[in-house]
């Protein structure tokens, strides 16, 4: 039932470019979609393993930089007279590299912080993101520093003489949609499996989880790797879409945005980051379209956030689910007389 609803929603979203002629709004949808992918990846860590990564943008940025650098090619002096260089590669291959490099970084972070939980995990992740940002600013030979990497090649898809360029917005929109669906399916399959149960067990009660034989560290590392790889893919999409990457991509505010999307939408639910991402991705643009002063916009944005968190502390999606379940239960009770408790004597 909800499965068909999901595919219907995907079909509807896929049809958007065919009737929406406003390219600006399509642009908003694309960037929102990229952020939703990043938010979904964060949700895997924050919502399911219960670990708050406040450096999540690092994986996003690493993906963006890796994809940009591999597709542009680079030469760096590792030692004064030793250079390591990569010739420009296809943008698709670059994206694959971005996913792998981000995933590997996730593995490192997961392993490094294997003993730390809660506040300490937060500190490790923030510090990590800051270190990566400083590298991006200062390693000018590789990253061009604040001058940014420009003219990042667009993704193209060519068969014979037919060439589809993802430079065009409708095509890129569909690409982002496809990536988001793939990430959603991966996360959905994961969390409904043995591995996902182990991750949720870590969130719910770590000592109990280990007492039933779950190697929680291993599943935390797996979750971090998958989460980082997805964030890296989102970053790669971003860099091939915007086609310029500078160190500002590592700004803390982007992590905060992702966390807000996950928390308001409902952490630990599949739809949460999508709902939260859609609201906080589109609302600022809608407010802007209504020609409201920017200062007022930000105030409204803030008020909306406070209202959601205050009235729906568990997020929008759990609140709706709870409401529907509550109604269903009322109906059940009314129609089916409850069986007496079996007494065991």
């Amino acid at each position, binding site marked *: 039932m909800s499965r068909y609803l999901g595919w219907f929603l995907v079909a509807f979203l896929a049809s958007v470019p065919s009737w929406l002629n406003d390219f600006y709004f399509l642009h908003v949808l694309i960037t929102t979609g990229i952020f939703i992918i990043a938010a979904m990846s964060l949700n895997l860590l924050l919502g399911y393993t219960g670990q708050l990564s406040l450096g999540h943008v690092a994986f996003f940025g690493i993906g963006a930089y890796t994809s940009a650098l591999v597709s542009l090619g680079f030469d760096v002096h590792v030692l004064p007279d030793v250079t390591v260089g990569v010739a420009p590669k296809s943008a698709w291959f670059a994206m694959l590299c971005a996913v792998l490099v981000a995933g590997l970084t996730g593995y490192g972070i997961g392993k490094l912080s294997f003993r730390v939980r809660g506040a300490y995990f937060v500190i490790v992740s923030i510090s990590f993101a800051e270190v990566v940002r400083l590298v991006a600013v200062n390693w000018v030979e590789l990253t061009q520093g604040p001058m940014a990497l420009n003219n990042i090649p667009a993704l193209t898809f060519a068969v014979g003489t037919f060439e589809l360029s993802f430079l065009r917005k409708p095509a890129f929109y569909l690409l982002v949609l496809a990536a988001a669906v793939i990430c959603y399916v*991966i996360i959905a*399959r*994961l969390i409904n*499996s*043995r*591995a996902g*149960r*182990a991750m*949720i*067990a870590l969130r*719910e*009660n770590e*000592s*109990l*989880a*280990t*007492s*039933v*034989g*779950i*190697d*929680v560290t291993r599943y935390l590392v*797996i979750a971090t790797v998958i989460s980082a790889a997805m964030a890296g893919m989102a970053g790669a999409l971003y860099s091939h879409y915007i086609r310029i990457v500078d160190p500002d991509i590592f700004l803390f505010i982007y992590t905060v945005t992702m966390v807000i999307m996950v928390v308001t939408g409902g952490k630990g639910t599949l739809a949460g980051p999508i709902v939260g991402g859609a609201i906080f991705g589109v609302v600022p643009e809608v407010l802007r379209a209504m020609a409201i002063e920017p200062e007022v916009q930000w105030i409204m944005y803030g008020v909306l956030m406070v209202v959601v968190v205050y009235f729906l502390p568990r997020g929008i999606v759990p609140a709706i689910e709870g409401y529907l379940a509550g109604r269903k239960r009322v109906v059940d009770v009314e129609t089916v007389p409850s*069986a007496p408790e*079996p007494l*065991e004597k």
Partner: protein
Amino acid sequence: MSARADTVLSIEHVAVHFGGLIAISDISFSVCSGEIVGLIGPNGAGKTTAFNVITGFLKQTSGDVRYRSTLLNGLKPHEIAKLGLVRTFQRTSVFQERTVFQNVLTGLHCRGRSNLWNILLQTSQEKSSERELTNAAHGILHFVGIEQRAEELAGTLPYGEQRLLGVALALAVKPSMLLLDEPVSGMNPSETARFVKLLEKIRTSGVTILLVQHDMPMVMQVCNRIVVLNYGRIIAEGTPSEIQNNPEVIRAYLGQGKKRA
């Protein structure tokens, strides 16, 4: 200490110091296959500390713990659980935000065989593995007697049933030995009676049990043998009737008072 051939768990000269505090000074005892052994003692005697050492949640300062001739020193809790030595916790310990059924499925973790590829590609092996786990989970819930609660959130169950779910979680690991930490504390008499029946059922299915419990009538009723701890030392060991008449035990529980002739 009896060195019988069917010893499954043996604790040899285990000591635990927290800085200057001696939680366990030097204890040695063993549990034989098929027994229900009670570990009792006043508050702070070191019972839960002993449990934590045996199951790897705490490192002993010295001494050895062996389970079926495997030395457990330095093993992690999840590794010990995989050997079939499984514990429950003193406070109610369930995955609160998950349904009863999902709780047991989580407990069945070690029986699943799916790896990441199987999960992501939803192979037929993954599906059949999940089916097996689902059946096993229903079986365990039925065994413990809370299958009618399967779809409810664990955190919303009444206290007694949460304890039962805790045991179900432990049973899901397919233990050869269970360590139960205060399983009936806070239960009313009828719930306790129900739990005692369940213990018998678990024992007859071939599981050895070590039990920490304050409810003396229950301990005397179910245990074959009792080990009494006080101030981190073993002060008595024997059958329930021996323990009940042991002056040292009475002193530990009731205090010495005025000496009478």
